[in-house]
């Protein structure tokens, strides 16, 4: 077996829903020991939300939950039980890192804020990612990634030119926080190893998402222009759109930025009208874009989207089939790269799991365990990780803290 990149790294995971669990999933997939603290008294929203396997409701049957929680241990712990402090104290002493994504202030109220944990373990690194950060007038707002898409301004840019803003099929900001949070954790570990100091990292999902809107922000600031919604259009490329292909709701996205790509595109399509002077330069193509797009589509509708992509890519013109979930699960590129992991989940059974988009040549990520059932590893974690004796474990069990 190959080494895992993060072997030996110990992570205490208070996180729930999406942003936090996605972050700790990366850590776990690359080899860190991640212990998720959960309770049936306040189960993770994703655990109790549809869709469920076979449509049968159950705390271990959410198909979204299994997608975000591989390779982790689940420890049942009721944080509101008076005995919880004793257990969390043991975890804090054990852990290098702690990750949480509750609304700001919630962990403090439970007695497990950064200052509390620091007392238990002076050099602990704590990563916190709340919707709008740990401080400021909106810090205590409950929120969803769905809303942050609007609050950050992202939706202002999403939609057709002249049309209404359109929602995204995902809680976008939840998935921006993980890479930033992870980069911060590694940087903080480097710093701790050099100086012996831990610290708290505050990742605001609002702020990380705005990072990616910089092109629009700069346009406003430097050019005094609200870019707004432009659909598929791009000022510096034409064609630059998704085009209808053979079949029902089948499309291929095609982009032509350079003259070289335009020349190759014309050779593939073989329509002499495209070679006329008015289409020769980018400026000309932008001026006659509507006419151009009709001609492109008149060609693409004759072929399957896969055929259009293949013909264009082979001539070095960037193109991509507008794929759906079924296409992805059959995608030859993904299968060649072993992107799907076959995992066996206790209640859900065997299923193809979306692996990681990062391959490290010496220490690749692996799918060792499917997502845990709630509290599946409570005994194991208490004995093997926290080193509890039988009497201690029994005493805590009696107190009802492990629920």
């Amino acid at each position, binding site marked *: 077996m190959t080494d895992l990149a993060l072997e030996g790294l110990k992570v205490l995971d208070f996180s729930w829903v999406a942003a936090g669990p*996605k972050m700790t999933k990366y850590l776990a997939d690359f080899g860190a020991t991640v212990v998720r603290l959960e309770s049936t008294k306040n189960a993770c929203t994703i655990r109790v939300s549809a869709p469920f396997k076979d449509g049968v409701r159950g705390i271990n049957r959410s198909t979204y939950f299994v997608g975000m929680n591989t390779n982790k241990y689940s420890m049942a712990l009721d944080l509101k039980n008076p005995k919880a402090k004793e257990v969390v104290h043991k975890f804090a002493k054990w852990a290098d890192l702690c990750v949480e994504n509750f609304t700001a202030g919630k962990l403090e109220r439970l007695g497990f804020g950064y200052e509390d944990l620091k007392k238990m373990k002076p050099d602990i690194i704590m990563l916190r990612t709340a919707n709008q950060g740990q401080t400021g007038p909106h810090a205590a707002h409950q929120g969803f990634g*769905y809303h942050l898409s609007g609050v950050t*301004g992202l939706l202002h840019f999403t939609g057709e030119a002249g049309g209404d803003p359109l929602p995204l099929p995902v809680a976008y900001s939840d998935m921006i926080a993980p890479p930033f949070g992870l980069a911060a954790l590694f940087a903080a570990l480097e710093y701790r190893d050099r100086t012996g100091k831990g610290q708290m990292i*505050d990742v605001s999902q609002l702020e990380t998402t705005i990072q990616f809107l910089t092109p629009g922000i700069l346009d406003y600031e430097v050019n005094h222009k609200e870019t707004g919604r432009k659909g598929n259009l791009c000022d510096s490329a034409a064609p630059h759109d998704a085009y209808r292909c053979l079949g029902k709701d089948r*499309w291929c996205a095609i982009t032509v930025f350079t003259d070289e790509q335009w020349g190759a595109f014309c050779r593939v399509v073989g329509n002499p009208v495209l070679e006329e002077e008015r289409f020769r330069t980018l400026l000309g193509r932008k001026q006659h874009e509507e006419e151009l797009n009709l001609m492109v589509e008149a060609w693409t509708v004759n072929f399957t989207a896969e055929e259009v992509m293949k013909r264009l890519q082979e001539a070095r013109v960037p193109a991509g089939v507008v794929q759906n*979930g079924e296409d992805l699960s059959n995608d030859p590129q993904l299968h060649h790269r072993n992107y799907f992991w076959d995992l066996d989940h206790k209640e859900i059974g065997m299923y193809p799991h979306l692996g990681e988009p990062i391959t*490290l040549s010496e220490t690749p990520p692996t799918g060792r365990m499917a997502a845990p059932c709630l509290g599946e590893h409570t005994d194991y974690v208490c004995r093997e990780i926290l080193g509890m004796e039988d009497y201690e474990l029994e005493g805590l069990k009696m107190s009802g803290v492990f629920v």
Partner: protein
Amino acid sequence: MPETKKQPQPLDGIKVIEIGNKISTAYCSKMLADQGAEVVKVEDPRTGKQDRQERILSGEGKPGSLFAYVNCNKFGIKLDVEQQASAKIIEDLVRQADILVEGYTPQTAKDMGIDYHRLRQINPNLIVLSITPFGQTGPYCEYNAYAINISAAAASSLCIGEPGRTPLPLPLSQVHFQSAAMGATAALGAIFAREFTGRGQHIDISESEVWMTHFTGHAVIAFVFHNRRRIRSGHKTQALYPNGIFHCKDGYITLLAMRGEQWKAFLNILGEGKIPEWYSSDERFMKTTFRELNLKYGDELEVMMEKWLTTKTKEEIFQLGRKNHVALAPVKDVREVLEDAHLAYRKYFVEVEDPEVGKVKYPPSALRFSKTPSVIHRPAPKLGEHNEEIYGGWLGYGKTKIEELKSNGVI
């Protein structure tokens, strides 16, 4: 902007070489530079000037503002990798470096002499990070693709747009930014691993995989487990209602009511304290379950909802939502984001003076470390600005040698 004195940073002492002219590679190494790494951006003396202004690296209108943003805190040198003399220079750079970031498809990287196989022989401790549209292996590995191609191939676009009309991408090159952030994370993970494996490694990042791992897992799950194919449904979501984006007096608001009691609370907002008359007096609505309302009467309800919503501003609706525990939030434009009170309290935007672009507000590093806050301490380098500092300082080349390389057009 004057260079400010550097505070201690987490990545002090880590050396990074960046070769490429893409958002993905530039933003990736910017994230490392923001945490203190010494990043050297290598640009082509012949096309560098053009690369700075063209295509995806320029903001629209005034060229170069996006370039200035994604390259602050870096050093810049010129190097023509196609000249023979550059092979030796790359070797010298790589011997010094911890991380090399590049964004070329495998064959091109090999032709340029920056493929991992070659570089590891020079420096076995080096971490090479390759960010490409489809990864280093497989039938598509030589395919080229931009943001909308990748958003399409990774199954996002099909779910965004009006029903029956063109599928849409996420705007403003989101794919490249995401891949960049994953790249920075992976590079640091590899630095961490190097401490116990004692060696570097090659990191292969596929932009399309980054996208689907983060955003289209649900589409695969919907198909694999539930045999459902998601498609786009305009401004409201298909299943749950009344989730969507709606008109209000001064723009748009988003509404998310996932449970029956939230829908009821929202109706109470609409009726200003009670269920509105038009709803309570209509048996069809009253007798339909929360989950079926959308399917049966979605369009009709929306007309009535918007009748009230369009009399109120985003802010008024947002405050009513807060008071009544209904998740309502504004869709902001850029000006509103720049003026946001919460961001102002947290001192989010920082004003910098860039020699090319002028005074401009940047989103800073979004990572807030309690002990080692990140700062923008240097504007983006001018083309070849740090030739002397890097070739002389890092590599120890003498004045004559540097002059000779310059006059031959190598650097």
